[in-house]
């Protein structure tokens, strides 16, 4: 894997989590108690043996840059002699008004690609909850002599396919036989993921051609439009996988973590998921605490009742407060007697005494960061 560069491509079109992506890009949205979404794809890359990863940001990247730091938590070092982690921001020159898509960001960093010593690139989005081993994908890509190999998913009811709107037909050898547009929606059981591998030379060609033609989206303008002339292959993705592109899916995939087998699969197989350590003490349960069926991060202090919920770090739940079927992001204060049900509570929210926040299973109550209620 030493000749594969990992590229995490952060798209604005993925910032669809309303309140949760209000002040941050999708890649730095909190997930699973103490992670951010980018941890999953970045850890997958590192665990697969990738030693050079580049993160292309677009906007609202302050928290992302802070989170990545020097990359040492992922064993990638920003100033490592072995390339490590690179974080590449968009060129100011391309103001968003004229921004045509991710290609422009790649184009303005062309030197970076040309200079790196890897011959292949593995490009992935950052809105995925997964723990993938990319070695099989890269092996398959080499054996099949493909131009581009995608990961795909079969029969996954939680996968929203609206992004593609294409009928996918995959041959027995894994070759993508057809990628026809389909207006009626997609009935295919197979869905391509935004994870694909190709040679660096091909990427550079695609980027330069698109920019000359004035188009800017790698996936649609670079790959799909040229799908007749490219040898496209697809390889099945194994293990737990969630593509987070709506608040409902965010909630669904979060709550799935309360299932022990999913948690085990996602957090430890094939490798661990790494994240920035916050140096917090363990969570403390007081005499009146009543917590069942829940996932809790460090540094919380619990006096109240928590059921079937996920609590991020440093949240305080006072006596008599009741949290059920909810996700509480870091540093919240839940005061005495407050009741929270079917809700996503943003970072640093204070909920005052006896306040009730009740959503419904099909209509969650989402509270924006730092709200005082």
């Amino acid at each position, binding site marked *: 894997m030493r000749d594969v560069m990992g590229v995490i491509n952060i798209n604005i079109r993925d910032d669809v989590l309303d309140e949760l992506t209000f002040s941050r890009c999708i890649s730095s949205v909190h997930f699973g108690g103490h992670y951010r979404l980018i941890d999953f794809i970045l850890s997958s890359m590192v665990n697969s043996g990738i030693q050079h990863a580049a993160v292309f940001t677009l906007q609202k990247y302050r928290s992302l840059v802070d989170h990545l730091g020097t990359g040492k*938590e992922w064993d990638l070092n920003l100033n490592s002699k072995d390339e490590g982690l690179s974080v590449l921001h968009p060129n100011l020159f391309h103001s968003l008004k004229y921004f045509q898509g991710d290609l422009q960001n790649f184009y303005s960093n062309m030197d970076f690609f040309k200079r790196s010593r890897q011959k292949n690139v593995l490009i992935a989005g950052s809105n995925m909850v997964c723990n993938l081993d990319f070695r099989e994908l890269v092996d398959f890509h080499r054996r099949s002599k493909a131009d581009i190999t995608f990961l795909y998913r079969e029969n996954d009811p939680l996968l929203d396919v609206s992004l593609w709107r294409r009928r996918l037909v995959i041959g027995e050898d894994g070759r993508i036989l057809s990628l026809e547009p389909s207006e009626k929606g997609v009935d295919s059981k197979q869905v391509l993921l935004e994870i694909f591998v190709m040679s660096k030379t091909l990427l550079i060609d695609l980027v330069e051609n698109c920019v000359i033609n004035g188009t800017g989206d790698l996936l649609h303008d670079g790959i799909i439009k040229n799908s007749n002339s490219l040898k496209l292959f697809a390889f099945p993705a194994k293990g737990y996988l969630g593509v987070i592109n709506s608040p409902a899916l965010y909630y669904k995939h979060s709550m799935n973590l309360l299932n022990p087998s999913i948690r085990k699969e996602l957090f430890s197989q094939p490798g661990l*998921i790494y994240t920035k350590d916050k140096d917090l003490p363990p969570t403390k349960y007081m*005499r009146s605490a009543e917590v069942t069926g829940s*996932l*809790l991060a460090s540094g919380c202090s619990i006096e109240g009742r928590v059921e079937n919920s996920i609590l991020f770090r440093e949240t305080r739940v006072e006596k008599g407060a009741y949290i059920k079927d909810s996700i509480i992001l870091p540093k919240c204060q839940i005061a005495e007697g407050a009741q929270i049900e079917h809700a996503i509570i943003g970072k640093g929210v204070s909920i005052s005494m006896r306040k009730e926040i009740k959503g419904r299973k099909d209509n969650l109550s989402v509270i924006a960061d730092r709200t005082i209620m």
Partner: protein
Amino acid sequence: MHSGKECVAMLLAGGEGKRLGILTRDKAKPALPFGGKYRIIDFTLSNCTNSGIDTVGVLTQYEPLILNSHLGNGSPWDLDRRKGGISLLPPFVRKKGGKWFKGTADAVYQNMNFLEQYNPSYVLIISGDHIYKMDYSMLLEYHQSKDADLTIAVIEVPWEEASRFGILDKNETGRITEFQEKPDIPKNNLASMGVYIFNFDMMKQFLFKDQNNIKSSNDFGKDVLPLMLKSNCRMFAYPFHGYWKDVGTTESLWQANIDLLENNPNLDLYEQHWPIYTVSTNQPPHYLGPEAKVEQSMISDGCTVFGEINHSILFPGVTVGHKTIVKDSIIMSNVIIGSGVKVEKAIIAENSSVGNNSRICRLDNVTEDIIVIREYSIIPHDSIINSTYTFKEIILRTGGKLK
């Protein structure tokens, strides 16, 4: 030529902790787990970081393996510096032959070259055995303001324990007038915390003097400090108020951990301006099952609890099965406890496993002893363990069997 450092810390971490029995059989006392996720040495190292001391020599000797891997390059404490940072200083061999560090003063003396390369104005001597939060920069300021040769941090200890410590007396200016290491009949309850700031030049002078005395045990408390006092050096006592603990025995280790479970414990791990740093475990958040019951306890990342945890501490990666009750106990990292188990007033050391329906608790409530299960123990199903000694002879790391 190195540009100097104002203050360099020498952290004594070679102690065996004999009275901790099987807990320190394979690791030095500073490497003992404490407080749900830390090792004891994390407290002094974090004190250094939080006090702005960026050069720390760690003197190791007894069983350093776990300590070495824990410290690594010092990055958890921000001690991976281009200049300074953390340096591990084990005993070494010279042309004339090598020898073990004889006493605390000898350990520092043998590493004089390390200190010389930074040529500090002050040397801070601290011990990796103690649990406390202290701003050494305040101590240094005090030392400077008194124009002292040596400043000792002191704390009032209970009279009945005073004979365990170096006891001193001071006049109203804070100048030390008397010093006795572990006196049989203490005249005072003002104890040395084993935290010293020396003027480097003065320290060199007295360490050389002490080395020339062949009768000396080369220990700061026993030899160097009395010698300095006799020579009329300016020695001052810096009064420290707050939590300070030397967990010398299994009982005090257990008690110090359990004390953290109070609503407002004397040692506050949750203070934001004085974080305690440690090596990250990279484990997911902990999970409490649908029938779990957790009260008055501390639980770390990576734990999975299906049973009942009462007045106990779970270190990272612990699993507790259904219908298991853990009470008044300390369960260290990666211990797996099966279902239907009862654990009461015990310390189960790292990486052990306890089979289903086992009992780890005393037969009666008369004995106050804490049951200690050694690391890497594998306790079969249905075992009954009612004292540390029940399980003493079983060396399980190599796969031995329960008799």
